[in-house]
C-alpha cells in the first residue's frame, strides 16, 4: 500500500501549471514526508516529530499549563501532577503513538525526555 501511494505521489509531481514567469516548476511535496519507496511499513519517526507530538499530548492534558511544557520537563516535579496523572499521560501517549507500554516501563516514564526517548527508540511507534 505504501508502494502504491508512493508511486502515485511520484507520478503527481510533473503536473504543474506553469506560471507566467518561466520559472521551472519545482516539485512541491513537503520534505517532511519521508520518501517511502518500496517499504512495507512506515519508516521510523524522526526525533523532531516525536518531540512535537509528545509535547502536544502533554500540553493538551487538562491539568497542565501548556506554557510550562518543555522537552525536559518533569511531570510531577515541574508540572505539579501526581502519579495518577502520570499514568493518564503515559496512556495518552500510548494512544497517540499506537503503542502498548508495559507497566514496568510505564512506571519509569515520569518526564518528557524519558517519554521522548522511549517512543523514539520503540520500533513500533507510529
Amino acid at each position, binding site marked *: 500500500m505504501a508502494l502504491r501511494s508512493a508511486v502515485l505521489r511520484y507520478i503527481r509531481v510533473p503536473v504543474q501549471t506553469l506560471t507566467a514567469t518561466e520559472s521551472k516548476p519545482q516539485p512541491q511535496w513537503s520534505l517532511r514526508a519521508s520518501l517511502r519507496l518500496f517499504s512495507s511499513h512506515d519508516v521510523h519517526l524522526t526525533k523532531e516529530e516525536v518531540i512535537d507530538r509528545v509535547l502536544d499530548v502533554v500540553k493538551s492534558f487538562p491539568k497542565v499549563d501548556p506554557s510550562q511544557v518543555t522537552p525536559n520537563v518533569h511531570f510531577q516535579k515541574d508540572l505539579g501532577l501526581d502519579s495518577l496523572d502520570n*499514568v*493518564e499521560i503515559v496512556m495518552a501517549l500510548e494512544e497517540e503513538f499506537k503503542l502498548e507500554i508495559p507497566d514496568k516501563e510505564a512506571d519509569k516514564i515520569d518526564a518528557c525526555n524519558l517519554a521522548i526517548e522511549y517512543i523514539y527508540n520503540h520500533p513500533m511507534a507510529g
Partner: protein
Amino acid sequence: MSTSKGKKLSGMQKQVLSLYRGFLRAARSKPTEDRRQIESIVSAEFQRNSKQVDRKNFLYIEYLLRRGKKQLDQLKSPDTMGLSAFNVSSSKKQNAKT
C-alpha cells in the same frame, strides 16, 4: 498532595497505579460515552482516596485494592456497559439503587 510519590515507587504504590491503569485500559474497550463516564468516576475515586487515606494504613489500602480488582474484573466482562456511583447519605430516604 498528601501522597507525593518519591523517586522510587513502593510495591503498594505500584499496585495502585497498576490497578488504575487497568481501569483506564478496560474503559478503552467500551463505547465512547461510557468510557468517559468510567474514566471520570474512577479518576475521582482514586484521587479522593489518595488524599483521604493515610499512606500508612496498609490494611485499608489492601482492602481497597482487593475490592478494586473485583470491580475491574466485572468491568472487563463484555456484559458490563459501565459504572455508576450513588451517594449513600445518612438519611435513609435518599438511598437510590442503580
